[in-house]
């Protein structure tokens, strides 16, 4: 049994830009690996370092945000490839949840399975949160998965997440392997019914 995930409380970092794709979250050249260990240091590598390997002015390099727990982003976060290396890199980097205006589907599913909740806020709410975090890196942000609310300072706003993801996270069932394994006989029967010929 995995621990249920009902609440995430911590500091946040606003990531500028829309359509942050998985190549940007973890550039492909760092995917030459046979385990996910050590991916954290390459998260967002190409925005954190310039072409000569120097540290950039990106907000992720700002010491004030170094230990942020919650990533706050714009629309279509995680689009592109199906690589689980992307959410794995974010988890290993230290993120515990993501708030964005929307997520690409495969990324969302991969993240949920890892226990990295992705909640969706409206543009206005997300922009306001980003502005608040920009002004003060120490603000404590709370994501409540059961009530689907995000609160910080004296602000609180509603977020959305598909019911199945809420259920999976709050029940501690987000890694479905045991449930999938348990249905072995039904699986065999469904497979037999297909009568695949190759």
């Amino acid at each position: 049994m995995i621990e249920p995930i009902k609440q995430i409380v911590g500091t946040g970092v606003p990531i500028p830009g829309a359509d942050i794709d998985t190549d940007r979250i973890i550039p492909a050249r760092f995917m030459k690996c046979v385990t996910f260990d050590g991916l954290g240091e390459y998260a967002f590598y190409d925005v954190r370092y310039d072409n000569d390997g120097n540290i950039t002015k990106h907000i992720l390099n700002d010491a004030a945000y170094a230990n942020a727990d919650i990533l706050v982003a714009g629309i279509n976060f995680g689009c592109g490839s199906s690589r689980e290396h992307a959410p794995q890199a974010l988890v290993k980097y230290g993120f515990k949840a993501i708030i964005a205006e929307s997520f690409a589907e495969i990324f969302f599913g991969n993240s949920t399975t890892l226990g990295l909740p992705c909640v969706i806020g409206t543009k206005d709410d997300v922009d306001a949160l980003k502005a608040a975090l920009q002004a003060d890196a120490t603000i404590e942000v709370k994501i409540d998965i059961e009530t689907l609310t995000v609160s910080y300072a004296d602000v609180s706003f509603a977020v959305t997440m598909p019911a199945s993801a809420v259920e999976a996270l709050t029940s501690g069932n987000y890694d479905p392997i045991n449930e999938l394994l348990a249905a072995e006989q039904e699986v065999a029967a469904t497979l037999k019914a297909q009568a695949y010929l190759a």
Partner: protein
Amino acid sequence: MGKSLYQKVWEAHSVKTLSDGRTQLLIGTHLIHEVTSPQAFGMMRELNLKVRFPERTFATVDHIVPTENQQQPLADPLADQMLNELRKNADEFGITYFDLASGKQGVVHVVGPEQGITQPGTTIACGDSHTATHGAFGAIAFGIGTTQVRDVLATQTIAMGGLKVRRINVTGKLSPGVYSKDVALHIVKVLGAKGGIGFAYEYGGNIFDEFTMEERMTVCNMSIEGGARCGYVNPDQKTFDYLKGRNYSPKGADWDVALERWKSFASDADTVYDDVVNIDAADIEPTVTWGISPDQGIAVSDSIPDPEQASNPEDKASIIEALEYMKLPAGQPIKGTKIDVAFIGSCTNGRISDFREVAKYIQGKKVAANVKAIAVPGSQVVDIMAKQEGLDKIFTEAGFEWRAAGCSMCLAMNPDKLVGDQICASSSNRNFKGRQGSPIGRTVLMSPVMVAAAAIEGGIADARETFNF
């Protein structure tokens, strides 16, 4: 009310409803490659799990293989380790593996169809977002994450929520010089890079009926660029003709049984779709991208967008960001933009028909002196066919390098990479920042014939002019 192919395949492959409300879905065919599978096998070992139906998983190596010197051990020790890991996992778990010595190796989405592994009326999963390609055969085919690769290995199923279905009709007549790649780029441009989130795309209309299987694959391949998890074309006689006699296709009496089964999955005539989009083929032009998202495309005769003309602040910001990265001048014609590299290959356009089509036009022409041009077959089978037909000679005589099969310059996991801010005319599917290996490298997506025209002219060109269509 009729059912769509998506619904029929989904229902036939549903095992049960899980406690979180998702469906436990049977995966008919599982494809794996070296990048997204080793960690899954690691998880299998950690949990002491066996591969439940090893005969339903097929492996090949594509992303990390060098296309020049394939002598093993590979020069890059990390790549060599990945290669060995896949071999070890395939051996240990009893999985069919099309390795470099097999004569069948190649980009996983090229290999599946040409071996006859990709079949209608089934679910196909692979730890790779371009798995949508296989939808061209009337399969529900989609990319999965590595933990799900583990789930498929261990149980032949995954947990998944259902999708809505959007029917996209392309009808009318494509003008000469307009290819299926242009149809794909046009659809992504019209519906946006996130327009397909939550949808399966069903492609139809006379254009898709007339398309060859390879043309259908090019469009299905780029479904994910439009945000759709999968895209498919209903199976028809072309599908069956393509599959007949292939290595893994059913044979003899089994063929007739399979045919009946496959036909039964096609969408019913009275299917009611969640959404319908109609596109006039006459509106589609040879299309090129100008930005850093696949939906940032324009007709080759058009001008690069001007942020000042954007309809809203978000569009304006994204145009500015894209043009800064691409170093392209707002409002100027895109035609004539100098290129440094030309790449023909990938799972979008690395099939035999792509090389045949380009070969028709480049004979007697020469790649511009300042351009490095590479042609990379999508699989060893394509490579062998091309050589039998003498296509490789036509390419090399025109100044292209003819390489060995692999993902090559579609992404940066092998030695084929852009350097600095080089700009590449590419027949691949993604123009993300850094996609082709240099963090500041630039990609312009287009059809293979347009890539050839750009290679010859030394800059983005209208292939219809270059080749006198």
